[in-house]
Structure formats: structure tokens, C-alpha cells
């Protein structure tokens, strides 16, 4: 596991196997995903621990993550399988904890489960 942005939060998992393009497909005010073809269409990422493979699309998407946080519509934390610079810098700007996990760890995280993410702990995901 790689810790890109550290932090400690507890919350409910919202998981998708689709990558997320933050620029243009996530509403900045509500955190609702507006892409009809996305697994999380019409769901809000707000106050969840968002688990998805990786970000895609323009690096400007990092500003979007910052805006979502400024509007109090951001996830509590993000867990990805692949590090991409848009999500990494976006979470860094917005101070949203972000970790990168292996495929096996990714598969083990169940949608709607309650988890504790603590990047200082020896078992960061509980």
C-alpha cells in the first residue's frame, strides 16, 4: 500500500470498478456523478470513502476535486488501485486522504461496508 495523502477517517464505502473523470462528470456543488454510463450515475460521492480504480481525463480535474471539497461535497477519503497525478494532486490540494492499494486489497473492500482508514496505523484499512 502506498500513502499519497495521509489522514484518519471512518465512513461508508462507495465503490466503483469504473475510473472517474472528475472534470465534467462530477457536480462540484453536490458531488453527484452525472455521467450516464458510469456505474455511480446519479449517486453522490459526498461523505463516503470513495473506492475506484483510478482517475482519468485532464489534469484540470484536480481543481474540480478542490472545488468539491470547498463546497463540502467531497468524499471523506479515496482509495485507488493505480496512482494517477490528477487524483493525487487533487486530493493533495483538497487535503483528502488518498491511498493506493493492490488488486487483492481493492477486491476485498466491499461496497457499502463501514471502514476505518488510518494512514499512521500498521493496518491502515480496518
Amino acid at each position, binding site marked *: 500500500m*502506498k*500513502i*499519497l*495523502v495521509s489522514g484518519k477517517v471512518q465512513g461508508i464505502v462507495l465503490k466503483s470498478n469504473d475510473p472517474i473523470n472528475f472534470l465534467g462528470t462530477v457536480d*462540484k456543488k453536490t458531488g453527484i456523478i452525472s455521467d450516464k454510463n458510469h456505474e455511480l450515475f446519479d449517486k453522490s460521492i459526498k461523505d463516503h470513502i470513495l473506492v475506484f480504480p483510478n482517475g482519468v481525463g485532464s*489534469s*484540470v480535474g*484536480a*481543481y*474540480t476535486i*478542490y*472545488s468539491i471539497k*470547498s463546497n463540502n461535497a467531497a468524499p471523506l477519503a479515496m482509495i485507488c488501485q493505480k*496512482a*494517477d*497525478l*490528477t487524483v*493525487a*494532486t487533487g*486530493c*493533495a*490540494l483538497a*487535503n483528502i486522504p*488518498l491511498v*493506493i492499494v493492490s488488486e487483492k486489497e481493492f477486491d476485498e473492500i466491499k461496497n457499502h461496508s463501514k471502514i476505518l482508514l488510518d494512514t499512521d496505523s500498521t493496518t491502515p484499512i480496518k
Partner: protein
Amino acid sequence: MELTREEESALKGEQGEIMQMAYRILVATGEATDAEKLIPIEWAHLSGVNYNTIGDAGEEFLSGISKNARVKVKTTLNPMGFDIDNVSNYGLDDNFISKQLSIRKSYETMGVNPSFSCIPYEIFDMPKEGTQVSFAESNAAIHANSFDNLKTNKESAFSALASAITGKSPYSSLRKEDSPNLTIRMKIDNPNELIYGMLGFFAGKVGNNSVNISGVGEMDRRSCKALCGGMGTSGTCAKFLFGDGDPSCEKVDFDKKEMNEIHDELNTAEKGDLITLGSPQLGLEEISDLTGKLKGRSFKKRCMIFCPRTVKEQARKIGYTNELERAGCEILADCCTCLTPLISKDNVDSVTTNSIKGAYYLKNSNGVDVNLKSLSQIIEDETR
């Protein structure tokens, strides 16, 4: 990643919120790119300036951080959306202009040099060989690594901004080493700048961090810039080395077939409604050369020329501007063909250009068709 005690303290917030955010960006970027530490840099060149690309989210972010953030090292800036001297000629809406001016003000407040140029390597003095810099503009990063003996990764707008504020950058990829695993064999004879642009575009598609290019001879400034611009557009590759490279390198040819494929991908029109020159922006050398080539001739249609403000001022003093305006050129400082809001599909169907980088963005962002021609062909066909 190993951090020094001072870096740790900044990351914990003991040096204020801005420093904490900047170090969070560096650590996130560094962990994502397997850096083992941060190293000092001497110069940051920032992207994320044009309101057309960063939008309201970017404008608000910059306005917010500019209250407290100050840059620690020499920091220069990519082009913005227009030239304030002649913006009224282009029908840009007031909201765009005021948001763009707010972005400008935020950067100036932070202590950034408002150079609005994508060719910092041509308008500023170059640091000594081997100096670590942090360039977010792709063509400038490639030029710095390949022609100026500087070291930079292809930075994001954010990592370069964090580098400007902290004076540091993650020690990863091209900062450490550059042993390409691929050699491109250039097979086209007597290439002009358009062909170098296509070679660059091809290299960006097939290369990873860096590539060798064999079979190219001396290149003029225009061709070097075209090669860098093309490569930065199509991929993540940020350095080329001239020569055959290590014998174990995989070899690919750039021949007529590869060239024609790129030409067909980007050339979608037989002719253009207007001409643009400059992406990357033209330097004084190219302006001088163009003035010489145009002696007594005039463009049959609009020709927009993009250059840095310092170049526009020098050109005016030397007398090139008079000559170019007489030939029908519109000279624009501080902005560039790439991602310009001044060309829209509402009033233009197609654009003629010799820039591969310009062509890619005109087609994909502005939604207009593109007619590719070398500069000499443009002068032959489009002037009288």
C-alpha cells in the same frame, strides 16, 4: 519517501497552510512517481494560466491561495487567453476577460513573472548545465531536457506550482536518469518543420520517458521547437537524445507510412479560412525570418502570429511589426494558438497552420478543421 526534518514540519502544517498544501502536492506526486526524496530546483515554469483551460475552479483556487502564497524561486508563466492590446478585435465576452485578468493578478501577487510564454528557453537566460528546474509546459520541458542541458520532469500545473512555492521537486524519472529503451530511425530526407512536428508527435506516441532519435542532422530553431511541440502533445515523453542509443534498444522507423498516418489524423481540410503561426510561440529569430520571407508580399487571408510580449516589443523596435502588419498579419502577445479562445467554430471552419501542436488542439478543443502546411508552402500558396 524520505523527508528532512524541515520538510516534515512543513507537511504537518507548522509553516502555515500554504506550505502544508505545497508539500502535500510534492509528497503525493513523489509517491505516485516513486521518488525517494525531494531536491532543490532553481526555476519553475507554470501552466494553468489560460482561463479557457482552468475555468472557474482554477480562477477561484488561485485567487484564494494568492492571499498568502509567495514563490521562492524564479517562476515564469505560460500563455493566457488573449493580448490585452487588441482583445477588443476578437469579440471575447467580458466574463472571460475579467476572469483572465483575475488569474493574472493572482499570479503577480504571488511574485510570478507574468511572462505569458510557452518558450521560456528562448526569452530567458539559461541556467548552467545540469540545473534542476520544474517546467510544466510540455514543449518547454522537452526543450530544456533535450537542447538546454537542464533537468526536469514533465510537470503538472500543480507540481510546478508547489515547486515554485517550496523551491523543491520530487526526485524521480528524468531527473535521475535517461536511458531510453527505444530508438526512432528518421527515414525522411530533407524534413521541414512540419515533418519534424510529425516526427515529434510520433515519438510522443511510441516513447515512454525518453527516446533516441537517429538519422536527423542539424536542425534550425523552428524545427527544434516543432519537434518539442509535437512530442509534448501526444504523450508523456519528455526528452529525446540524438543518435542510435544503446544497441539493445528497440528500433522503430519513422518513414512515409508513419508520417502519412499522422498527417491524415491531423489534416482534415484542403484549405483554411485563416492562418495561425506560433505554437510554440514565435521567437525573434522566426519573426525576423518571416519578415524576410514576406518582403513585398501580402497574405490573401487573415494571418494570426503568436509571440511573447518581449518579442513583440523587440519586433516593434526593430521595425518587423510594421512590415508584418503591412503584409496583413495580426500580432498577438501573451497568448498562443494552443487552446486559444480567439478562434471558434462559430466563425471559422478551418485553420491553416504549420504547427502540429496547434493542429491537435484546434481540432480537439476548438472543434475546427485543420489544413497543415509548412511555412514555405504557406508563403507560396497564401501570399501574393
